[in-house]
């Protein structure tokens, strides 16, 4: 689907690139979410994160999610860029972005894209803190 833009990469993510990809002359609303690495997690100082993914499944699941978003909200372009490997404090781990004719759909679709990412896209995060390294368990 030419309106889906998904990427797993070890390189830094650019919000300017994401914006230029999702822009469309029929769309008045672009929403970008940037998930950045915080300096603490549950009271521990975070040094860095590491991400790994089951790459082929990531793209298949994201295609399904984008189809959902397009039929539910009528949005145009759907983008998800996610870092793999080591990501330091302050760096962007994920960019989710959606373009739409109007803003409500763009907000709702971007929020749902992030919720679905955290529920069902096969990516895992390991936190490296002063207390050691642990695979993060999602909140119940």
């Amino acid at each position, binding site marked *: 689907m030419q309106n889906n833009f998904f990427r797993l990469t070890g390189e830094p993510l650019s919000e300017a690139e994401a914006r230029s990809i999702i822009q469309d002359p029929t769309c008045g609303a672009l929403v970008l979410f940037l998930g950045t690495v915080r300096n603490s997690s549950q009271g521990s100082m975070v040094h860095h994160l590491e991400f790994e993914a089951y790459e082929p*499944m990531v793209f*298949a699941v994201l295609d399904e999610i984008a189809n959902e978003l397009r039929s539910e909200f009528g949005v145009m372009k759907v983008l998800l860029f996610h870092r793999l490997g080591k990501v330091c404090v302050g760096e962007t781990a994920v960019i989710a972005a959606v373009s739409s004719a109007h803003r409500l759909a763009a907000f709702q679709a971007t929020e749902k894209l992030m919720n679905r*990412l955290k529920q069902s896209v096969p990516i895992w*995060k390991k936190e490296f803190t002063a207390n050691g390294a642990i695979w993060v368990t999602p909140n119940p």
Partner: protein
Amino acid sequence: MKITILFFGVAQDMAGVRQTTLELQAGCTVGGLRSELAKLFVGMDETLAYALAVNEKLSIDNQVLVEGDVAAVLPPVSGG
């Protein structure tokens, strides 16, 4: 029959490897593979609540495995 198993996230720590090959009896189901994994690796049991993908698709426990299948142990995801 030989089945390739991939381990992700915390399952990697439990298995001690990213990938292995298991010899299973012909006709073994996904549920049977789960029992095998629980015997082989400490913690890889019902307390982990992992999904099993077979050939990059989520599986159900009564799905029958065949020679050459690639199964992936997918703990609860934590991307973003």
